[in-house]
């Protein structure tokens, strides 16, 4: 296990490109050529459907989604449907689970803990709800988690609602749960809410600690993207410059 968590703000990344970057980072990690990583992509609005979708999770019609410019992706992560987009802090966790004893539930609980601790430091009381993975605050959902594992390396990760337009969640039943209310850090804190940059740093610190790292280091996005483009087996042309 690497001692420190490498953290990189990838910047603007359409969802498809995000998938390719994750695939490359995963191959590099599985091959022992890269450290454990937390990657922050900035996704344009997108709906993603996990491997356990329930009927009618997407409320909006395909037509309405197309008009709104929202793409829908089916992805190999756990969980149901969710929305990603501006104002939300999406974190991909590319971690070698083989070196963490392959304990998937413990991994989920550690991710939750990292988010709970971050929110706690901002003065937002948050916690778990048994049987409903994710992070909740006063009965409302503030962060979602969906993980996939290949070659015992994790990918996908978490999505913390920092200051998104929560109306996007009206398009769906988030995580397939009916009558669920989504909330955000901005909704709770108003003017005192952290900026996205502050949120990225705070989550990196708490996540690194919850996952048992001694600390975290920042990775340069341009350098990282270049190195990932050289990963063998990753289709060319899927990475934007």
């Amino acid at each position: 296990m690497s001692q420190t968590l490498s953290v990189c703000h990838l910047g603007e990344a359409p969802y498809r490109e995000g998938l390719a970057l994750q695939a490359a980072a995963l191959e590099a990690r599985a091959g022992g050529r890269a450290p454990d990583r937390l990657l922050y992509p900035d996704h344009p609005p997108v709906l993603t459907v996990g491997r356990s979708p329930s009927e009618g999770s997407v409320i909006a019609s395909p037509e309405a989604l197309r008009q709104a410019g929202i793409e829908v992706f089916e992805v190999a992560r756990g969980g149901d449907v969710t929305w990603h987009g501006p104002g939300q802090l999406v974190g991909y966790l590319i971690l070698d689970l083989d070196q963490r004893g392959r304990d998937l539930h413990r991994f989920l609980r550690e991710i939750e803990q990292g988010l709970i601790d971050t929110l706690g430091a901002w003065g937002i009381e948050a916690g778990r709800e048994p049987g409903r993975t994710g992070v909740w605050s006063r009965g409302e959902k503030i962060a979602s988690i969906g993980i996939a594992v290949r070659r015992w390396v994790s990918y996908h990760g978490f999505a913390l609602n920092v200051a998104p337009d929560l109306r996007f969640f009206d398009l769906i039943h988030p995580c397939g749960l009916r009558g669920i209310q989504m909330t955000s850090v901005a909704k709770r804190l108003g003017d005192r809410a952290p900026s996205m940059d502050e949120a990225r740093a705070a989550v990196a610190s708490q996540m690194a600690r919850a996952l048992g790292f001694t600390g975290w280091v920042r990775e340069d996005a341009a350098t990282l993207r270049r190195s990932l483009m050289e990963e063998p087996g990753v289709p060319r042309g899927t990475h934007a410059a």
Partner: protein
Amino acid sequence: MPISIVVPQLGESVAEGTVAKWLKAEGERVRKEEPLVEIQTDKINVEIPSPGEGTLTKILVAEGTTVLVGTEIAVLAGAGEAAGAPASAPAAKTPAQAEAPRSSAATPVSPAAKMPAGEEAPRVPIAAQVSAPPPRPAPMRAPDGGGNGGGGNGGIEHNRHLSPAVRKIMREQGVTLAEVSAIPGSGVAGRVTRDDLIEYLDSRTSRPGPAAPAAVAVAPAPPAALPGFAPLAPAAAGPREEVVPFTKVRKLIAENMLRSKHSTAHTHCFDEADMSAIAQLKKEWGPKLESRGIKLTYMPFFIKASVLALREFPWVNGEVKGDSLVVKHYYNIGMAVGRDDKGLIVPNIKDCDRKGLPQIAAEVNDLASRARADRLRPDDIQGGTFSITNAGVFGAINSSPVINFPEVAILGVHKIVERPVIRDGQIVARPMMNASIGFDHRVIDGELAVKFLRRICELLERPELLWFYA
């Protein structure tokens, strides 16, 4: 031999997983390590790679079905098998089989990902079990639309109403399904709860009368295994302690080391060599090879000297099989590569007797860098006949290395140190190196080991002897 695909362990608190998606269809060919199926637990979706090469003959559990960890979900016909299809043509010999006589069954330490299919599979800690696995609990839920109607195994119906907590106790206490079905349950619809089971267990131990079924509470005999292989209680960290679970590679290293130590008559002897001549050769040839992109280390010299000594003392280049020694007239020389926390690995260079020093040097560079980058191919770690380990790179001046089983000897080389030695009655400083040999005393007598090691040292000290031995 068919390979059984089971839901692997996914964590301490994970008792079951859902088959989310089959990535291969029945009848489809599957390469080793190719993603086979996605298993989901909670909000994690795990791609399970195929433990071997072959044909997916039977999918036993449909998508969307939740089953217990350890449940068999599919069967793979191994590479080269007829896959059970009646019309299939005689299976062509796979490269793996063709290689078989040369590649020994027990590989040296290798990442599980690179283990060959076949006999070694039971040790692959992924979801494969080659032989008949121990009886496992039946699937939790019938496939959708299965409409079992209570037919078939009644245990399934019953089992599906047992909570993970109850099943855990059953496993730990060796309680059978039949026993549990005899317990009047206090839960919803008469289900047996955890408390019911604990109460039953209390009564079972307190009155050994007719209520206690025979043959209960007899701990299953542990499978015959080498000492130290027996599963131990999971470690728990005390204050100021840390539990570091073994990685796959570490488990394999542990097993191979124990196997070597327990199944051979391990012993060692030591010698030393004046490295002046080799140091001179290296100094002279290093820059020349450097210009061809080859970094010259001492290892190629050790390899070449070993090959010459092995040709003179062929028994050292062998393997014990039953009551015989199989002597090999090819020289695939392994070199131990330390990889920090990733663990030791011993790739080998093939046919070192037929290669010149520059080529061996190039292959040493290549194998070492690929070993560290985790990019070795299965072939790199199979079929070795003799190994060399250089503890000197870390500063050791002597060591007693463990034989890379099933080989019968290993050469240890060390740090070259300027030491005072006597030459022609004068005390002079010379670059000296200790050499050691670990050997299997069942087949190699001390005399042979000493002579063999001496010859290696002589060849290093006086490279001109190559004229006489090569």
